[in-house]
């Protein structure tokens, strides 16, 4: 395939394009690159059948396990919208291969407060006006739970730093920071 024939973004020097240049498209069968395995998600054992091994944890959660709460704003580790817990550690699930997570405990936004109720972070996001389009919201909720469990008395700068890997295009973060402060006050028993 010559450069002129390359239908990708060859000129932009993008990684997908490099991968594509090496790909041998004709005649492959995805089944040859697939496996079945089990994942533990939100306390349940889930079986993943004949899944292509290149699928990210985010893809498997969203498209195979019926858990689309984790979002896919960039699929390359830059936005935090896909944040989940992997063995208690905050990760971007778009950058974790699902098949690599077989022995881990995965907790997604859906697992934070199963049932009708809201976690304190979820409730204060709502009340503080921290939700507009809401695409960043699940990732931020997970990230804020992580932060406040680790550093309950984080100051504003620490909070800003901690959520700086979660992009939000709608809010300018003002109401999100307010929501975090409100949770902190409530947990510390100093709230209104």
């Amino acid at each position: 395939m010559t450069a002129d024939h390359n239908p990708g973004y060859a000129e932009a020097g993008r990684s997908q394009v490099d991968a594509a240049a090496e790909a041998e498209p004709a005649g492959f069968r995805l089944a040859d690159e697939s496996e079945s395995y089990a994942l533990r998600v939100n306390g349940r054992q889930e079986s993943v059948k004949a899944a292509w091994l290149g699928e990210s944890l985010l893809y498997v959660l969203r498209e195979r396990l019926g858990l689309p709460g984790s979002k896919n704003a960039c699929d390359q580790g830059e936005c935090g919208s896909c944040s989940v817990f992997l063995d208690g550690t905050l990760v971007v699930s778009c950058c974790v291969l699902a098949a690599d997570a077989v022995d881990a405990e995965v907790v997604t936004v859906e697992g934070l407060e199963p049932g009708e109720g809201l976690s304190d972070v979820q409730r204060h996001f709502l009340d503080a006006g921290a939700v507009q389009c809401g695409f960043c919201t699940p990732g931020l909720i997970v990230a804020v739970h992580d932060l406040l469990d680790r550093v309950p008395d984080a100051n504003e700068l620490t909070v800003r730093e901690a959520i700086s890997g979660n992009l939000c295009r709608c809010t300018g973060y003002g109401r999100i920071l307010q929501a975090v402060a409100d949770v902190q006050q409530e947990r510390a028993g100093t709230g209104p």
Partner: protein
Amino acid sequence: MTPQHVSAAAPFAPAAPQAPPRRDRKRSPGRGVGTSSSRPDGIPKVKGQFAFSSDLWADGMLWGRTLRSPHPAARIRRVDTEAARRIPGVHAVLTADDVPGEPNYGLEHPDQPVFASNVIRYHGEAVAAVAADHPEIAWRAVQAIEVDYEPTPAVVDPEVAIDAPPLHPDGNVFRHLTIRHGDLEAAGEVTVEGSYAVGMQDQAFLGPESGMAIPGDDGGVDLYISTQWLHVDRDQVAACLGLPPGQVRLTLSGIGGAFGAREDVSLQVHVCLLALRTGRAVKMLYSREESFFGHVHRHPARMWYRHAATKAGELVKVEARLLLDGGAYASSSTAVIANAACFSCGPYRVPNAHIDAWVVRTNNPPCGAMRGFGAVQACFGHESQMDKLAAALQMDPVQLRLRNALRSGDELITGQRITGTAPVRECIEAAVAHPLPPDAGSEGRGPYDPLLLPGGAGRTADHADVRRGVGFAVGFKNLMYSEGFDDFSTAAVRLEEGGDGEPVATVHCAAAEVGQGFVTLAQQIVRSVLGVDRVVLRAADTRVGSAGSTSASRQTWMSGGAVQAAALAVRDALLEQVAEARGVEVQGARRKLLTLRDGEVVHVEGRFRLTLTEALDGRPVEEVREYRHAPTMPLDADGQGDAHVSYAFAAHRAVVDVDPDLGLVRVLQITTGQDVGKALNPLQVTGQIEGGIAQGLGLAVMEEIVVDGGRIRNPSFTDYLIPTALDMPDVQATLIEQPEPGAPFGAKGVGEPPTISSTPAVVSAIRAATGIDLRRVPVRPDDIALGVTGSAFSAK
């Protein structure tokens, strides 16, 4: 078949958990107009259960994917899809030959091919689309399509494009607009002149383009889509599919932000073609990279200005030449250039003006609407000039602006008088009234945290070298559609007894909820008019009339007006129904003896008092209304005419710290006064202001699509930076509430003004800190570190 969200119903489905049965018979106070009532989609959104368009899923669905051109300009000699078709799991490969209807679409002019057939006009133009069992198969199939391109020279300089051989049968000038106002020979005592440039900004909404098409039994198609205007999409899609509009049914799917980037058709036609060809549900979802190629961007601008004033600081004349790069296709360029021209002088009394504005076609990525479209570019120009004029006059820049600030009754450079409110002075005074942040060294917390320095955690700046600057800017823009456009919105409101015996109102309106909170306002308006607590929103779709676009800060006014009108009609019909049923005597308008108060129908003479459920008596009441704003006129050959309905104003003050050696900037604080008419939901207004300022800050110091020879160099969030929580400063906002005559509830749209003057305010602050004559946004580190003062127009 309808698509399912795996774990939840469609957005705003009546069964959503936000509306628990209420027993209180009267409307609960605090949830009507003017309160910070919470979003009806809020609970699903925080729980991860809200169905965005990318979450759609259907049994047996296929994945669609687009093949895009790697060249900005080329001829296509041959497209061979054979190898792609042979891949197991590939169900369709479509090219231009497979488009049964109109080959082109477009928001205002249908000039963009569904698939390029023989000419490529921009980097990323769609050439083919595939549908396959798995996204990876779709991706490999796209790679297997062989396209024989013959690259041709790309015309990427808009000045060259004006006179270059046409890049398209429709020519290269989308629109040239001239405004001649007053005495063009008028001269001032002091003159300042400058050239300014604005880079290409991306809307960078978080939820990528996505949608699902499902073939219908009638040969038509159902499309579940994130868009800003369902009906204008439907008309374009139907034309390209060769179907009557009635057979193309669109339903709004959950939208992860828009900011103008969803006004144009992206994957809508492709996904429908694939579904109709395969007879299966097809889902398309752009990657972030493809999103940068798949939607229009903010027009880059080159601007020349000359301002003349008296020694006392009274503006005498403004001359300007504006050139916007529209990229390969028209999109909304004609409206963008009209805004740039009409608002080119800023919110000031300018008795004499001569403006020439062009928007042209090039081989750069297509540009269209982005928050504040046209006004954003011009504001950077006119506010840079106002600073320059203040310096020349040795006048305080805020005083200069106050001296010339527009007031109600003043004439714009289009000859139109402002009949509504124009609290420019109040906005300015409010923005500067907020206290400045403390000096860098005096925060009383010991050593300055390096995270607070320009450059942040990299610890790159030395505290002692950091310089502080304060800057100021004012801007304005029209609300809603202008220049004679028949701008309307439709809403249906139904009032009935719910299953639990309590009254429930249902709103059906096609207005696109993109995150701004129209759904909240719709509920608040119905609660206030009908006194019913439970208000349910039906999914927005094309089964109801058009609501127009969620753009131009228009839905609060337009669809808010339609919902209000429909709710008032329901009230009147209900009172009529009660009057008839209760035999209230006819005296002129018999329902005048009845009122609806706090959720009860009351006879004014005290004869009876009914709950809504009693008044309904088992008979639902439903009314549909169209709302139109006051008519506007086209501009004449001199750019004169009553082209606009209403205007919104805002002022911003920015405080920055700059490391002059490394050229790094940290914005510490932005304060604002914004003209909102009346805040229907103060919390949501605050959210719009803070979010809009973030986008203005982004344009000032970090956001630019780098286009080099027509090619986008940074299509990712790694290389296209948007502000993070660490980049955003403290924002202090004052809402200026002067109800706008003629606007429903007196409210003005609030989405765009925060994005207009925040950018020049930040740049003004950087100039104040560094003394460098910055003439281009975004300001790059080398502009500061190297003190670059060459042409504002050099791209790199």
